[in-house]
């Protein structure tokens, strides 16, 4: 049974597509219809401008976010190992625990 050579078929079909040049026919009064349509529309696509601005802002925002995330993970630890919540606890407890009189004043 004869078999089909896909590569040869590909070349043949591409040649067929190249031989078929699309028509450049323009429907009658097309340019007049377009001009009439454009006169009814606003010249500036405000929604498109706004959307474009948002997309442009997205890249620097994501960059800043990645940098800050990286910094929070890889920043060197502080000298004190206590975090802020622990320090707050210490401050509050220090105020709450009554002062003990010195040992020699009890006699």
């Amino acid at each position, binding site marked *: 049974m004869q078999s*089909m050579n896909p590569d040869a078929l590909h070349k043949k079909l591409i040649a067929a597509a190249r031989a078929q040049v699309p*028509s450049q026919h323009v429907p009658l009064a097309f*340019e007049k219809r377009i001009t009439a349509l454009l006169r009814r529309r606003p010249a500036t696509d405000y929604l498109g401008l706004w959307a474009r601005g948002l997309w442009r802002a997205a890249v620097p925002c994501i960059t800043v976010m990645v940098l800050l995330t990286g910094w929070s993970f890889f920043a060197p630890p502080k000298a004190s190992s206590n975090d802020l919540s622990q320090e707050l606890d210490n401050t509050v407890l220090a105020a709450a625990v009554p002062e003990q009189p010195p040992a020699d004043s009890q006699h």
Partner: protein
Amino acid sequence: MERTEAELIAAVLKGDAASFEPLVQRYSPRVFATARRYARRESEVEDIVQEVWVKAFQKLAGFRSEAPFEHWLMRLAVRTCYDFLRSHQRNRETTFSELSEPETDWLERFVGDPETASESADAARLLVERLLEQLSPPARLIITLLEIEDRSVKEISDLTGWSVPLVKVRAFRARAEMRKLLAKMAKEKYL
């Protein structure tokens, strides 16, 4: 006295929409020919071309006169055609058992003797259209620009806005998709 393109564009940007008409008249043939590569129905072709001109009008302020207006317009046209392909993706699972008799006869002639299967035959044209319709939108765009219109990778990059490496990757994938389709055709018809 006929105005230059730069004068027409300046007039449109000042608010004279009527000055856009000569540009539409001058370049519509080329835009229509481009749209006809990607859409079969004439109503779809006209919709695509209309969309191209509306976008051109709205984005005219962004046109930099370093490059010719025609290049800028054709970039817009190709991207609009690509958007059309993406929005009109159909279920591409067509089997090759649905080929018409002329297409089947052409394939059989090709298998028997490739030289006897003419590229200018209508059946060849129908087969190519059937294959292109089954490709994904990026594959169809790349195959059309790279192989049918014989454009360079750099030209395709300029037209589509894709980077040169991305064009090359998509070309590789598009050819693989095409090979897979042709192998499927060979399997269904001749095994």
